[in-house]
Structure formats: structure tokens, C-alpha cells
């Protein structure tokens, strides 16, 4: 019989994030599929009681916690020590973990430390006949594999956004605190804080309904023989503002900056979608002035409704990559789109 550990970190206020609640739902489903296997909740952070109380009614056999100010920062040395202690306390055979950036940094090292194996970016967990299998993507979302492992412990990182949220069942949880002493060698790193663009300058919005992708065409010469980069910036920012969209870009557009060409001032590599960029999860996507070549569109794997605007009717989007391709001038279309969005917002 498998011993399952749901491993999560708490947020600064002690609560649990969305990714953790999604993963908890997966753990409950897995436990049921394994014939009602017991599962344990393991939490780490500055404080864990609020997070445990939030999910007190989730059906866990036990709640364990590693808490203290040293476990507040997202840092390899302390996170690995906390997670290792929780895994060893439970003698878990399967550890299911939300793939936040914090746990993604540490989980493979944890698997190595425990003598186990790890699978990351997992988008599904199933159990049939007592055998647990996970599905994940290979070659940057180009092919999906279904695999199982004989080794234990098996650490499984569940991709945020791939699972439904578990219903929250608050109450009062009895948390068994696991004492962990972290050596000085595990605290040589100091977390200084977060860096992010202020207010509306933050163009990456994971919760947005719409992914707006800008391609290199926005910076190219237009019908009058001149590039209109400043106008393009205004149109794109207005769309983000009125449509509350998240901004993505093609690699070619981001790379133009490094080649000394005129670029959109607010774009960074963080906006890049595709083979060497992000694979975001938004219900809808609108690609503009982007050719829709395979290295870019693999980043659209989890975008459901896809539209594209391009002057080339034979671009990549026309070849089964988009639901609708509008063969049109994006400057003209987006000017009108922004007017309509602004009217709707007013």
C-alpha cells in the first residue's frame, strides 16, 4: 500500500496558494483510486497552522508541519531540509507536490537526497490496478508521455493550472510539528525580496482570460514604408489595459532588442512564449503580427481558443494552429478593438 504525502509550502500569511489547493484535489483523487489509501499533509513555512486549518476537512490522516522564521524565505537549503524532514517522518512512498517555483527549485534535489525519483510538470495522475501513472509532456509540449516508476519514494510535481481546485473545508487541524535544525551551511543565501514592474507595467498576468501575443511584425515597416513602433506600443498597452490581458511575445521580437533594433520597450524575455519561453494557461489567446511557427506555438499547447491576426494567409496559424485566422492589418484591427474595449469599460 502506498503512503502518500501532500507536500506544500504556506504563503507569507500562513495560508495555502491556488497551486497547493489544486494539488490537494489531485491527492484526494489519487488516494481514492488506490482504494482509499491514507494520505498525510505536510506543510512548511513561517507558520503552518492557518494553512492546515484551511484544509482541516480534506480527509488527511495526519497533519505535519515544519515552521519557523528560517522557513519563510524561498531558499534551497532550508526548503530542502524542511521537505526532507516531512518526507522521512511519513516514510512516504509517493509525494505529491505543487510545482510552484519554490518547490520546483528544491524537489529534484530532495528526490536525490531521499534516494528516490522525481517527475515534474505532471499534468495528470491516474491509478489502475494499484499502479500509479503520471502524464507529462516531452520536447517542449510536443508529445505527451504516460509513465510509471518502480522506485520509491516517487516525487510528483503537479503543474499549476492543470487540475481543478479542491474545495476548501476549513476547521481546526491538529498539526504535529517536526523539529528541524538547519545547519549554517544551509543558510548562506539571503533572500533580498521580489523585483517586479510597478502597477500596470506588469504585463504578465497569469490569471488573465486572454493571452495577447505580439510578434516581430509590430516593429517592421508598414504600408507607408516606415516602422511605427511607438504606435504599436500604445495599441498593445491599451489592449492589455482595457482587455485585462496578459502579454506574450515571440522569441524573434524579444531578441530584436539584443540585436540593436527598435523594440517594444516593455517586453522582456519573461514575456516570451514557446520553445524557449513560457507555456501559459489562459482560456483564450490572440496572436498578432506573429507567424505561428512551431517553436512558438508549442507554447500555446494549453491555450484553448486561439485567434490570430496576420497579413499572410499562409502563415503557420493557418495550418491548424489557430481556430480563426484574420488576414488583416493588426494596427487597424487593434485600433478598433481597443475602441470597443474602452467603450465596454466605460
Amino acid at each position, binding site marked *: 500500500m502506498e503512503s502518500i504525502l501532500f507536500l506544500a509550502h504556506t504563503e507569507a500569511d500562513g495560508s495555502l496558494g491556488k497551486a497547493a489547493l489544486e494539488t490537494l484535489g489531485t491527492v484526494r483523487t489519487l488516494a481514492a483510486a488506490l482504494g482509499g489509501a491514507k494520505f498525510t499533509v505536510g506543510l512548511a513555512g513561517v507558520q503552518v497552522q492557518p494553512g492546515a486549518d484551511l484544509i482541516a476537512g480534506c480527509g488527511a490522516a495526519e497533519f505535519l508541519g515544519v515552521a519557523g522564521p528560517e522557513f519563510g524565505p524561498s531558499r*534551497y537549503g532550508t526548503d530542502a531540509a524542511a521537505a526532507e524532514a516531512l518526507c522521512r517522518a511519513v516514510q512516504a512512498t509517493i509525494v505529491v507536490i505543487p510545482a510552484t517555483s519554490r518547490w520546483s527549485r*528544491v524537489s529534484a534535489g530532495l528526490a536525490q537526497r531521499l534516494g528516490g525519483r522525481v517527475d515534474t510538470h505532471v499534468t495528470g495522475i491516474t491509478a489502475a490496478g494499484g499502479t500509479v501513472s503520471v502524464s507529462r509532456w*516531452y*520536447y517542449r509540449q510536443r508529445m505527451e508521455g504516460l509513465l510509471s516508476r518502480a522506485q520509491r519514494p516517487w516525487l510528483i510535481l503537479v503543474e499549476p493550472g492543470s487540475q481543478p481546485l479542491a474545495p476548501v473545508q476549513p476547521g481546526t487541524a491538529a498539526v504535529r510539528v517536526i523539529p528541524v535544525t538547519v545547519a549554517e551551511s544551509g543558510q548562506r*543565501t539571503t533572500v533580498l525580496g521580489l523585483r517586479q514592474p510597478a502597477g500596470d507595467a506588469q504585463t504578465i498576468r497569469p490569471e488573465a482570460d486572454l493571452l495577447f501575443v505580439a510578434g516581430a511584425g509590430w516593429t517592421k515597416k508598414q504600408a507607408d514604408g516606415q516602422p511605427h513602433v511607438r504606435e504599436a506600443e500604445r495599441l498593445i498597452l491599451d489592449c492589455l489595459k482595457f482587455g485585462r490581458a496578459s502579454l506574450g511575445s515571440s522569441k524573434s521580437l524579444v531578441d530584436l532588442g539584443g540585436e540593436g533594433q527598435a523594440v517594444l520597450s516593455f517586453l522582456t524575455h519573461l514575456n516570451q512564449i514557446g520553445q*524557449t519561453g513560457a507555456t501559459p494557461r489562459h482560456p483564450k489567446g490572440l496572436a498578432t503580427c506573429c507567424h505561428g511557427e512551431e517553436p512558438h506555438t508549442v507554447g500555446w499547447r494549453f491555450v484553448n481558443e486561439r485567434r490570430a491576426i496576420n497579413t499572410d494567409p499562409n502563415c503557420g496559424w493557418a495550418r491548424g494552429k489557430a481556430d480563426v485566422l484574420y488576414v488583416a492589418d493588426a494596427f487597424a484591427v487593434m485600433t478598433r478593438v481597443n475602441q470597443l474595449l474602452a467603450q465596454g469599460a466605460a
Partner: protein
Amino acid sequence: MSIAYQIVVCGSIVPDPLQTLEPVASPGGPALKNEMMLPAVLDPWASHALYEAGNLARTALGSKVWLVSLGPKAKLQQVMMTVAQKVPFELVALDGSASGFTDASETAAALAEAIQAIPGLDRSRLLVFGGWESASRGAGATMQMVGERLGILDQFQGVDELKIAADGSLEILERIEGGKHQASRCASPPALLGWATGNLPEPKNNPQVGMLNMRTVMPALQRAKAVKLPGEGLSFASVALPKQLRDTRIVKDQSPDEIAREIVAG
């Protein structure tokens, strides 16, 4: 305070991103159709790690870069013809599979062993670089396991920037959720950095650097140790291409106003 760093970059080869990939079943598990025929490149994120390593080595006098690469020897040789022209490094080659279907744990064991065998390695100057993920397995797991095997407890993933402070500490920006970065300061090496894209453009090919590198690349390839990655305990039930080809509606004759209304209503 200037440190002459020993920078070990881990990076392997992947199929050229423009290639069409198709999975096939092989006696050893899943593989890519015509895998050995596909043109290959150095993994994009590992490439960024290599460029950052070259840049740091140039600014910190006395520093040296090693590139530890596990892949089929013949393919490594092809890729090195280009990569060797980018930045000065010494190659440590391992002859084995670079498939995305190999196990990260076994790959990490081979890489860590190769790193530990580098003569004169000094932990107080050691920085281990690599991509935060690969374009093949894309797990973001190998580097952490290498770090654990080397006893490195200061690890950073999704790194976009590394600055060396006046006191020799390392100031690092890591990507986190929502387009944000986490800033951290690590007291000193050893440290492991899994790079995202960083901030550097791809260096131009420099034939002189290429000539210099190739003096060590060819001998390194000749003495490349054969590595087996059996994938023990790992079994694939299936690997398949997604059935997501859409029936694209191509709209050619609508005015911008009509299109805009359809998009907004959409």
C-alpha cells in the same frame, strides 16, 4: 575582491527546434523517429548558461569554463563545430544518449561523476551552471540532482541575472510566478545556477576562439567515456503526439471593424 572562478557548465544537445518530431517505440523505450539523423543544437537554455559563463570568465580574470556534455559522440562533434566558436571552454564529453526519455537521476549521476573527475577542482571557486530545463526532457531536475551529489546547498533556478558584489558575494535574480523575480544573495561559491535566458545576446562566431577550443574538443571527444542510461524502474505506457490540429477558419474579406467586433464578442 576578485575570484578566479571555476565555472562548470552542464549542457547537452537537442533536436533543432524547427524539426518535426515524432515519437517511436524502440527496444530501449521511446525514442524519436530518425533521431540520429535530426540536426542538433546545444540546448537553448544550456547555451545561455554557457554564454553567461563565458561573460563571467572574461570579467573575472583567471577564471576557466568547462562544458560537460552528455550525448552521442558523433552528434556532439557536429554541434561543437559551432558552439566552440562562441566562448572559450574546455570540453568534458560523455558518450551516451541525449534523449528526452532518459531518466534525470541517471544523467545527473554521470554528470556529477564527470565534474568530480575534473583535475584541480576547488569548491571555494566552483560555480556549476546549466539550463533550468532542457528542450528535451524539460524536467528541470538534472541540475538539482547534480548539485546534491556535489554537496552544493546554494542552488538557484530560472536565473536571469548574476552579479558579483564587491565583497565577492553573488547577487542572483531568479524567475518566479507572475513575471516577477526573486533577488537573493549567496555568500560565496560553491553555488549552482540553472539559467533561464539571462540578458546576453548570442555571441558572434569567433573563428580564433573556435580554433583554440577545437584543440581540446577533439581529444575530449576521443576519450569520451561511454555512459549507459538504462532507465531502471521507469516504464512508459505510451508517448504520443497531441491530436490538436485545428480546423482553421481563414477570414480574408472582413473589414477591421467587423473583425474587431468578432474578437471582442469572442
